């Protein structure tokens, strides 16, 4: 109700006066406004957090998989990217120091990957072996951290296998497997002692991991250098640092970040994002309906007040516009408050592994996603726009329902209203 001691400053029919009138009305009904702001703030916070967790989870899956299946970024020859064969290996490693000097590159570790046949007394399995420097590999890969039985390689003549691969070969720790390969050095074989079993929960890792000493890989393949150089790059900076690395590489070499390396997984995540966007939109619609219902209750409670305003000469159209503006103002304030809270919470969860232990409670099913137990939220300005869709929808619904009711308002009837 308009306070009797506060005269209307300008003509109610004036369009310019409407925003001021709507703004003042907000603070005449502080409790109702606070409720509306709180509803919108909550919806905004939830929207920002929803997308932050969603995108962060996807990034964590991507980064986690990268640290198992590839690396945050890899350098190889362009020919190797098309035909991953040791014959297309790096011509030399002279560029390593230049790459290590690029800001953001925490480690640059050579690797040599090649196709092998592993034999046990009972069966044989084809696989892709990775020759690694045992002391450096853990800087660019989480696989050494997932050796649940035995230990990491220490020298030539040893092999670390994925647990499922070892089971398929029926080979136990301490037993010998035979590795056959055919590359630049022709057909070569070696007997390797199994010293470690990788149990990551990620099927591709547990059924495909074959780690051997880099020096022995060079000897078996005949390649003196490496097929790739794996880079350790801080989370979230992969694309930017990879571009900087590309700038210092000699011609014929290519640096690829995690999204390029895991193309299929990236594509799947992007497709999933489309579905999640629809869910987010539905979420916004429900939040907007919650705001609209609050506005509607507010309109019902203020019927007599609107009757007075109508009796003083304010047209139903102006009343409807005023109601809509009130909804827009309140939702904008709620949006701003929600953004501050949402981005604040997102920032906290982007820097501390709050979600990892929560999701770890889901056990093996969660482990198969390959996040490695660390899940961080993502940050993006676009979340503010997603949350703003709630305001837009609330404004639309306010026009459709409460404001439409105002258009049908009869001042005389409204003055007699009981509510």
């Amino acid at each position, binding site marked *: 109700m308009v306070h009797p001691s506060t005269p209307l400053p300008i003509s109610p029919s004036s369009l310019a006066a409407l925003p001021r009138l709507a703004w003042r009305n907000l603070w005449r009904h502080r409790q109702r406004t606070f409720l509306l702001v709180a509803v919108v703030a909550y919806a905004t916070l939830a929207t920002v957090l929803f997308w932050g967790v969603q995108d962060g989870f996807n990034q964590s899956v991507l980064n986690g998989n990268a640290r198992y299946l590839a690396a945050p970024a890899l350098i190889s020859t362009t020919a190797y990217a098309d035909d991953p064969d040791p014959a297309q290996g790096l011509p030399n490693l002279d560029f390593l120091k230049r790459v290590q000097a690029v800001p953001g590159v925490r480690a640059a570790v050579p690797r040599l990957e090649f*196709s*092998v*046949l592993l*034999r*046990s*007394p*009972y*069966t*044989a399995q*084809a696989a892709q072996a990775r020759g690694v420097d045992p002391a450096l590999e853990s800087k660019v890969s989480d696989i050494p951290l997932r050796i649940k039985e035995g230990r990491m390689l220490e020298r030539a*003549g040893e092999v670390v296998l994925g647990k499922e691969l070892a089971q398929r070969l029926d080979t136990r720790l301490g*037993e*010998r*497997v*035979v*590795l*056959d*390969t*055919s590359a630049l050095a*022709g*057909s070569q*074989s*070696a*007997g*390797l002692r199994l010293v470690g079993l990788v149990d990551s929960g990620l099927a591709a890792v547990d059924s495909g991991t074959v780690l051997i000493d880099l020096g022995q890989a060079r000897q078996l393949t005949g390649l003196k250098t490496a097929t790739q150089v794996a880079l350790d790059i801080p989370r979230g900076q992969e694309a930017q640092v990879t571009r900087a690395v590309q700038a210092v590489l000699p011609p014929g070499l290519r640096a690829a970040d995690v999204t390029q390396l895991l193309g299929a997984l990236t594509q799947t995540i992007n497709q999933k994002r489309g579905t999640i966007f629809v869910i987010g939109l539905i979420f916004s619609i429900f939040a907007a309906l919650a705001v609209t219902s609050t506005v509607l209750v507010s309109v019902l409670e203020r019927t007599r007040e609107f009757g007075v305003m109508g009796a003083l000469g304010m047209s139903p159209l102006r009343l409807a516009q005023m109601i809509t503006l009130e909804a827009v103002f309140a939702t904008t304030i709620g949006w701003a408050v929600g953004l501050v809270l949402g981005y604040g919470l997102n920032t906290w969860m982007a820097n501390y592994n709050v979600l990892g232990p929560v999701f770890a409670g889901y056990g093996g099913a969660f482990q198969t996603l390959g996040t490695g137990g660390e899940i961080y939220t993502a940050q993006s300005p676009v979340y503010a726009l997603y949350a703003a869709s709630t305001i837009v929808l609330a404004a639309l619904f306010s026009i459709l329902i409460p404001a439409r009711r105002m258009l049908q308002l009869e001042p005389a009837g409204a003055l007699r209203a009981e509510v």
Partner: protein
Amino acid sequence: MKGKILLLLLGLSLSSAASDPQAVLKAIVDNQRGGGSVRATLNLSVARTDRQTQYVLDIVSDGNERALIQVKAPPREAGQAFLRDGDNILIYNPTLKRVLRLPPSGRSDSFLGSDLSYSDLSGRDLQRDYTPKITAEDANNLTLELTPQPSAPTPYGKVTIQAKVKGYVPLEVTFFDQRSQAVKKVTFAQYAEVNGHSFPVQTTVEDLLHSGNRTTLVYSDYKFGVSIPSGCFDQRALVAGC
């Protein structure tokens, strides 16, 4: 006099082999190979619990790293051919009319569905991968135990060979896994005297992990020490024969 010296030398040689497990192993392997180049027909019999398949193969080998194997029977398999040159194995498929190179991942595949793999065809050398030790010996037979050398490309934990003391004629080879369980047994029979070696004409390979799986190889029409043209070991011979 010359004959006496020859006998003395032979006696010295045999006594030297008896004291040297490596020499005993070499003598056994030499017998098993028959020595030198060979042309032969091989009857390959593959027995499974539910069926038995007979193959007739023509074999030409230079006695070293090169061999050509052609399938002559049964009719539906005839025309297939396999050429080994060192560690490289080429396969001719008459249906596709194409020569294919066997990739490393295919080397453990079964050869014609038998208990032999393509790796067995490429002749993994017992002398190269194992350290022999004589563990039992009586007047007639001896047993050699072969332990894999460190980082030797063999998945087996040990191999035992039983042979006759006289002439080191191979009788039986047993392959054990690394848990001391016997997984494969090769038995030799029907010996022929060839170039001073006792060549086993019949070889039986038994898969001890799958009861009833057995492959028997019987040589016939064999000629050792014959001259084999090098053209027998090129791709043309793989298609057209030698």
